[in-house]
């Protein structure tokens, strides 16, 4: 079994290095094919490992070699395949296989075709390290690795200023969170003496609540950055500047869920500190609503999907915070499927529309892009949580969990957000695929994507439809490790009312979206009443948060840096050094007149010197002679 672990882990690395060999050469089709094949082999290995774990096999634990060892610290490159990591491995390898194949078509005409696969596979490798590591330090390797790859992929089209800006923003914002994560690691090490999950979890039980709370908070700060939780969320929407397959893989299915994975992985920690868990759940619910509200009015197709991702991450955190770790993990998995599908569909649309992103400039595309239309509709249905698609099973369970745990506010917020989700998802679908063909105004001739791209997407389509059937076996598998409880609502009547009520509520939201946008005929020009309302502007400008960051953090940072350099460093620190040197220099400069070369002047100085020396000799002689009296006088003066 260890063989499969190594294949799953290192096939992406081999793929990345192989593609990297060709970065300087023109596009080679086989690079994409080989990379896809290697990632596929990682997927197959993960699948075999999943089978092993599902059959009740022991978790596989390997220790490759020492990484860092000094003092009492010992960090190996250790990897573990257990119920949690195997789930993540499946999600990661499946979605990345599909994205790799899809990218062969999507990046067809791009100069950086080979480079793209090098980065993409490197990302998969980092993600595999992240989920498979058996210690926090290894997780941190993957954590930073995915950050690096995300930087390289967001800024993939590096000639675009906005893309590289977004890449830097993502990297730096993640770094802020990583500091929290790092501090969390330090706390774990100094309190438990190890960074291995096993040892640390075993030691957590003996620690006092205050320490555990701090550990929980700092680790969660790390999770907030990667999973783009408020207030570190702005990078995710900006990250949409990257190629669409990247958005599908990194910014929907895998990397952004790393934060959720961290909380699930540390479930033994968070079960000990339910108050932190409640905070996480509340923040998650808040973000769910907050992000959904921004998605309502946005006019950028990819950003809408990004906000929906953010919103769904909020759901996952809400579940994880309430202790329903398996529900969070299940939603993570289901979400990966339908959200990746949605993004890839959006990629097809973008290709067809020559990189146009405003859904208001599309419309009626279902005639030319039938399959994309079907896929995106089903993905949106799954996202909205309509029975019997994947989202129904995962998202509704979160609602049930919140209800069963008696957190009615969280439940209410999440329920309301479910309606919003349905609305903005179908607003997007309606605007793109229904209504009048507004794209004709812009002279675009859309076309359906390559057939193999559609075929590559089809596994996601199937999974988005049927992922619900995995709920029971999944629960059985993770039950042991996540200490899972099924969330039964005691009365069957209540349960049915909830289920049906939610379905009706969501269905109404979908119908409303279709009614409002299904027959849209014009491109808004900013003159309508709604567009000038305060709420619309607030939401459209993302609550002015990016503006505030720019204005109150970025600009002051620039200015302070400038001041520190030109004023403090040059005018104070360096000037005082030069001042000391200048003092000696000018003292020399001024006293050189003494050295006039005139014998008479020099003799005068000599005489002056003799007189000073003589008088000093006299003064000290007297002082030594009368020291007793002088002391007496001084002490009389009270000195």
């Amino acid at each position, binding site marked *: 079994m260890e063989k499969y672990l190594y294949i799953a882990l290192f096939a992406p690395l081999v793929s990345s290095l192989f593609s990297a060999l060709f*970065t*300087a050469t023109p596009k080679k089709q086989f690079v994409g094919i080989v990379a896809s094949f290697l990632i596929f082999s990682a997927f197959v290995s993960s699948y075999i490992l999943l089978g092993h774990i599902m059959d009740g096999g022991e978790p596989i634990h390997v220790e490759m*070699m*020492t*990484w*860092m*060892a*000094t*003092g*009492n*610290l010992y960090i190996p490159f250790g990897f573990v395949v257990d119920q949690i990591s195997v789930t993540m491995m499946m999600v990661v390898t499946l979605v990345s296989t599909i994205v790799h194949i899809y990218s062969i078509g999507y990046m067809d005409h791009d100069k950086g075709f080979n480079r793209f696969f090098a980065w993409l596979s490197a990302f998969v490798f980092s993600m595999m390290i992240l989920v498979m590591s058996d210690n926090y*330090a290894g997780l*941190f*390797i993957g954590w*930073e*690795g995915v950050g*690096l790859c995300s*930087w390289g992929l967001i*800024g993939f089209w*590096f*000639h675009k*200023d906005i893309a*590289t*800006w977004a890449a*830097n923003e993502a*990297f*730096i914002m993640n*770094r*802020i969170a*990583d*500091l929290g994560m*790092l*501090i969390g*690691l*330090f*706390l774990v*090490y*100094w309190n438990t003496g190890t960074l291995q999950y096993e040892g640390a979890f075993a030691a957590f039980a003996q620690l006092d609540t205050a320490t555990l709370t701090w550990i929980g908070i700092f680790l969660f700060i790390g999770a907030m950055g990667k999973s783009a939780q408020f207030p570190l969320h702005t990078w995710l929407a900006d990250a949409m500047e990257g190629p669409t397959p990247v958005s599908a893989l990194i910014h929907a299915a895998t990397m952004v869920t790393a934060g959720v994975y961290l909380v699930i992985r540390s479930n033994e920690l968070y079960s000990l500190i339910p108050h932190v868990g409640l905070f996480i759940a509340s923040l998650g619910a808040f973000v769910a609503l907050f992000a959904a509200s921004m998605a309502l009015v946005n006019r950028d197709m990819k950003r809408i999907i990004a906000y929906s991702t953010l919103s769904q991450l909020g759901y996952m955190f809400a579940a994880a915070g309430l202790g329903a770790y398996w529900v969070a993990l299940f939603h993570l998995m289901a979400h990966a499927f339908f959200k990746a599908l949605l993004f890839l569909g959006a990629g097809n649309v973008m290709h067809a529309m020559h990189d146009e992103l405003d859904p208001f400039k599309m419309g009626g595309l279902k005639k030319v892009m039938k399959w994309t239309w079907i896929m995106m509709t089903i993905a949106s249905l799954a996202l909205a949580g309509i029975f019997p698609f994947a989202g129904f099973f995962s998202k509704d369970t979160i609602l049930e969990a919140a209800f069963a745990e008696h957190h009615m506010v969280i439940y209410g917020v999440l329920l309301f957000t479910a309606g919003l989700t349905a609305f903005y998802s179908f607003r997007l679908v309606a605007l793109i695929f229904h209504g009048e063909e507004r794209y004709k105004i812009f002279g675009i001739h859309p076309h359906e994507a390559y057939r193999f791209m559609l075929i590559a997407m089809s596994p996601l389509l199937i999974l988005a439809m049927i992922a619900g059937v995995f709920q029971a076996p999944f629960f059985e598998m993770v039950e042991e490790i996540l200490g899972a409880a099924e969330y039964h609502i005691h009365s069957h009547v209540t349960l049915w009312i909830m289920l049906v009520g939610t379905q009706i509520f969501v269905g109404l939201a979908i119908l409303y979206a279709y009614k409002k946008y299904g027959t849209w005929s014009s491109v808004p020009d900013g003159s309508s009443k709604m567009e000038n309302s305060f709420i619309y502007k607030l939401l459209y400008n993302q609550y002015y948060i990016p503006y505030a960051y720019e204005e109150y953090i970025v600009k002051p*940072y*620039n200015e*302070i*840096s*400038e001041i*520190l*350099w*030109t004023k*403090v*460093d040059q005018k104070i*620190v*360096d000037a*005082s*050094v030069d001042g000391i*040197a200048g003092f000696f220099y000018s003292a020399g400069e001024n006293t050189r007149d003494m050295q006039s070369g005139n014998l008479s002047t020099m003799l005068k100085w000599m005489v002056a010197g003799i007189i000073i020396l003589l008088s000093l000799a006299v003064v000290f002689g007297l002082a030594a002679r009368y020291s007793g009296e002088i002391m007496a006088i001084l002490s009389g003066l009270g000195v």
Partner: protein
Amino acid sequence: MLDHILSILIFFPALAGILGFMIDKKSIRAYGIAVGFVEFALSLWLWFAFDSNVSGMQFMENLPLIPSFGINYILGVDGISLFIIILAAFFTMIGIASLTKTKNEKNMIITLLFLQMTMIGVFSALDAIVFYVFWELSLVPMLYIIGAWGGPLRIYASIKFFLYTFAGSLVMLVGMLFMAYFFYQATGTWSFAILDWYRLILPESFQLWLFVAFFFGFAIKVPMFPFHTWLPYAHGQAPTIGSVILAAILLKMGTYAFIRFSLPLFPDASVFFMVPIAVIAIIMIIYTAMVAYAQKDVKQVVAYSSVSHMGVIILGTFALNVEGISGSVFLMIGHGVVSGALFLLVGVIYDRRHTKLMSEFGGLAHVMPRYATIFGIMLMASVGMPLTINFVGEFLSLLGFYEQSHILTLLAGIAIIVGAIYMLSAYKKMFFGNITKDENRELKDVNKRELLALIPLSIITIWLGIYPKPILEPINNSVEAVVQLMHNKSTTVEAKERIPNVSGIVISKTSTREAH
């Protein structure tokens, strides 16, 4: 031969340098590379013969110079100094190999060989006077390199460099003399041998004064805030090779001396000054990172980033536990490799465009993809990406200091944020976007000679990031001995608490000689 390998390592380049005057101008480069290579091979042999399980000094040599004053030519290496010596030999070799055509090439190479002698001398000397002599001698070749091959402000920069560091060293010399005097008072014999000094337990009040005296010499060399302003000038004006050696090796003298002198000689004072020095280190980290962000000149960005990273090294050193000090020693190696490589990279573009202003570049990734890739690797190493060499050192340094102070470590950890800010924005300005200047359209990518230096550095950067054990293990053993020594020597209650007891066996105090 192994008995005298350290003397050979020190004086072989110097002798070769003297012989170099007789070599023809045309073949001097080949000669220099050959000497550098032999020296590097010797240093590798030293590593090979080094027993990493021994924590104490190895390859000791002892030759009386002025026996009546206890001044002896004592050499020796342990895990702390071994790798810096190898690094010095390595950088001199690739520095000569990748040297661009300059005027007076012969003088440059001979100067570099003399510089190598002084550097290896500093890191292997175990007698304070011998240490001091090499320490000061190292200024002379550097002064010459900056002053003769530097930019327009070279005279100002070189004199500033020389006088500033020299002034600090003088205070240090006074400290050394006092230390020897206290030793004489306590034992009745004169000795400048560092290992003898290690056995002397000083009262805390003496320690404080001596610590301050040594601190001036070391802090200016590091350079610590607010004594850092000579560094940007020196880097800004020095030729590429000068900056590379300065950043990679010369700065490490200061931090190395902290570990060799300040910590084991003055454990109580080290604990006493831990918080103030940590605050200075944090100021170094954040303040210089912000200053680096405001720079227009890419070489200045790297220069200020050096100061910022040295702050982390100082912090790790004053963690006073095995994790922190091992991390700081490892980060010395890591920072040497990475900042040396970054200066070489800046030199690459400077040779082509004769400007270092970032506004003159932009979109270089289009025309110089290999250059952009190597720069990217070094950039990521510089911001402390895991699996690169710098991460190991930074992680351990911060981890070590976390035991001493939580809040200060949190502040120091901002290094990973601000570091990313200035480095990424510099990278974006240089490499991303479209090519805006016509001069940049025809730039040639890195050539073979430059790759000769950059490829090994890239390999080391990643190799030691993934597998730091070969270096970390000997470092760890020697650092454990240092920490144990400090724990045993410390007299105040606070110091006993702060400095961990590594082995758990406390050597009884009566066996050590006490001053007064």
